[in-house]
């Protein structure tokens, strides 16, 4: 009986940067055997810290896919794999002789997942699928900023969303294969995946109300506040029960009968005036951040201090959720990083090891394909493998 959900499943991961490798890592930690195929020049993301997370738990082989023998080795691996993941520019895999149709002919059960910026059709398919360009076109920066000035966002939403969309879609295709016996091609674009994070406003109907957005929060009770010591907190009074509890806790029961709070917490109605907002801002300037947090939390009102990521990494609850792990990474020593974000009671996922150095498993994988040590030496000499 399989110990992990994806035990026995083989994955060939041609991914680079974030989206493809993230999908491969998620599958690996639920039990799949994932082989990362890296180019001789290396995954350009190797210089980033994130590389260590998105490539852990995988095996690694370095292949020059531009050489016919490199392609032959890749095709050999593809013939016996369950899953192929790639996030090259559209058309690159076809040019390398590793396109879906070719692999499917040899392996009709293969689930082949392609991730690209904008897909291979439509005017934007000419635009390189970089994170920033996808987010620009997907209105993320425009919506975040003030009306006349977009804001660049630091977090890589587009790649993260596409990688996770790929991960669940691949497993869904495995489920379908259990019934049909056939594999299929899955196409993910960063553009669609990013827009699918915008369901709150990515819609149009008669009567749709678009809230006036400010990057500190538009609602007077669901927003960032600055406190007496200059530190900030977020007050998240997210339903009317909390609105009542909050006003009682701060001694402003008088507001309960006032029309100033109409439409709160989320302002499904336009606010009556900016008055409540001004009063709230003044109120929060009367105590330090930690005094406010104590008062709010002891009254059961959702609120949190605004912390840095370093402070967050020391937070007890992160440990309680088993979300902080330390792994020995060759060349770097002990590296602290995230654990497994989804917990299965019967088939728990686990980290199988650090990100492999380039070509760590080349010889072992070639042997599995029937190459002898002399062949491996020759392939190294000819720079087909590393």
């Amino acid at each position, binding site marked *: *009986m*399989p110990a992990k959900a994806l035990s026995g499943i083989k994955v060939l991961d041609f991914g680079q940067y*974030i989206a493809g490798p993230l999908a491969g890592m998620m599958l690996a930690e639920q039990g799949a055997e994932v082989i990362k195929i890296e180019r001789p020049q290396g995954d350009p993301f190797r210089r980033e*810290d*994130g590389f260590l997370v*998105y490539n852990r738990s995988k095996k690694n082989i370095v292949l020059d896919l531009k050489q016919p023998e490199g392609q032959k080795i890749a095709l050999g691996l593809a013939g016996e794999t369950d899953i192929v993941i790639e996030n090259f520019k559209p058309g690159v895999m076809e040019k390398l002789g590793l396109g879906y149709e070719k692999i499917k002919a040899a392996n009709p059960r293969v689930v082949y997942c392609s991730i690209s910026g*904008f897909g291979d*059709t439509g005017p*934007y*398919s000419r635009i*390189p699928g*970089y994170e*920033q*360009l996808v987010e620009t*076109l997907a*209105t*993320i920066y*425009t*919506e975040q900023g003030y009306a006349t000035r*977009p804001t*660049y966002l*630091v*977090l890589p*939403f587009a790649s*993260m*969303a596409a990688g996770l*969309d790929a991960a*669940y879609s691949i*497993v*869904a295709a*495995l489920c*379908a294969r259990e019934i049909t016996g056939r594999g299929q091609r*899955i*196409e993910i674009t960063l553009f*669609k995946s990013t*827009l*699918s*994070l915008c*369901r*709150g*406003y*990515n819609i149009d*109907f*008669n009567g749709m109300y678009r809230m006036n957005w400010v990057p500190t*929060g538009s609602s007077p009770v669901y*927003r*960032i506040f600055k406190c007496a010591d200059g530190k900030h907190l*977020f007050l*998240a009074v997210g339903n009317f029960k909390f609105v009542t509890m909050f006003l009682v806790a701060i001694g402003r029961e008088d507001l309960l009968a006032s029309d100033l709070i109409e439409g709160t917490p989320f302002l499904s109605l336009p606010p009556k005036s900016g008055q409540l907002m001004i009063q709230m801002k003044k109120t929060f300037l009367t105590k330090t951040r930690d005094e406010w947090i104590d008062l709010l939390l002891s009254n059961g009102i959702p609120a*949190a201090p605004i912390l*840095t990521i370093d402070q*967050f*990494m020391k937070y*007890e*609850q992160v440990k*309680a*959720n088993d979300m902080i792990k330390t792994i020995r990474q060759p060349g770097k020593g002990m590296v*602290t990083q995230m654990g497994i974000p*989804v917990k*299965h009671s019967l088939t728990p996922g686990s980290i199988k090891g650090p990100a492999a150095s380039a070509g760590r498993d080349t010889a072992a994988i070639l042997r599995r394909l029937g190459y002898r040590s002399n062949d491996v030496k020759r392939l190294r000499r000819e720079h087909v493998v590393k």
Partner: protein
Amino acid sequence: MKPFENIRVADFTTMIAGPGLGRILSDLGADVIKIETPEGDTYRPVYAGFIGYNRGKRGIAMDLTRPEAREIAYKLIATCHVVVENSRPGTMKKLGLDYETLKKIRPDLIYVSSTAFGTKGPDGNRPGYDPIFQAISGQMAEQGGLDFPVYHKIAINDEFIPLIGSFGAACAIFHKMRTGQGQMVELSLLNSSITIQSSKFIKYKGQNRKSIGKHDVIGRSATDRLYQGLDGKWFYLYCAKEEHFHALCRYIGMEELITDPRFATAGARKRHDNELAAILQEVFIYAPAGLHALLLILAGVPAAAAQDIGHLIKEDPHCKETGMYTTIDDPLFGKTILQDVTVKFSETPINIQRPAPLHGGHTKEVLLEIGYSKEQIAEFIAQKLVMTAGKD
């Protein structure tokens, strides 16, 4: 056939994170039944979001605090493969709808539970909304700095729960197909906030971690940022490789910058970042943003014009050609344009199954399916055990 065509889901969730998960399962073909309280999902008044997170599902409403209604829920769950819930820890237990209880009704049940902070530990029972985790996890400070923290408009931690959760549910469904076993799958907003930041949530000796977050940030460097054009609109320019920078210099007619010692290498450009940004902004102000973006792409420089959502939904040629949007007939608002399914499957294509349900819009339909007679259902309605709406 769709991947999850034979899967039925009982969806007890409210707000964004939980309903978004049921929404993806429904896109993948599952029959997702949203079960609401007599008052309904508190997110219903936020119509745009409610439709976005609940389209594709059927909806029933019942008073789960009453034992007779609970019996109806048990009968429904006996026909379901998956339960999804995101109530406060303890709430489902009080209603007799926790995993341990339901497992007795259906031993192979997959029970997906999404909480705020988790279930154990010092803050395990605290309630929390998305921005609580934007605040505490460093997302706000990493973006704007501690003096100007930024609240992300996209409910990021909420929005990533459905993605992580669909993966967790899909793995559990696959395991069940292979072994017949069910299990519990746990998610939290806290874990979601870590996952999104996983490339920063890293620490080791000798690490050189720089935060670029500051007030009103428009990019990372002169060749990786937003610029304004003649029309006041903005576009993003991103030179990822040397060849992009060279093509950019040719595009602006200043080829001499390629060999200019201030800008000839990535290191030099970093030291003279402000000078380069000033040169570029001065040139870019002579043509509209959209035109620059187009011409830069043709010149071999990665660039894209900032858009507004109205344009994207109604006019964007790429969205039209690739079928980004679809139109559904919403029972409340009529003609509604919204994003079509996210993923393309070649052999088991998926689609949006139906509009978002009215509160109790499919109560009779679902109760008939699970074996109640019309007379029994009429009695349940009379006793206010269940609620119906619309044509149901």
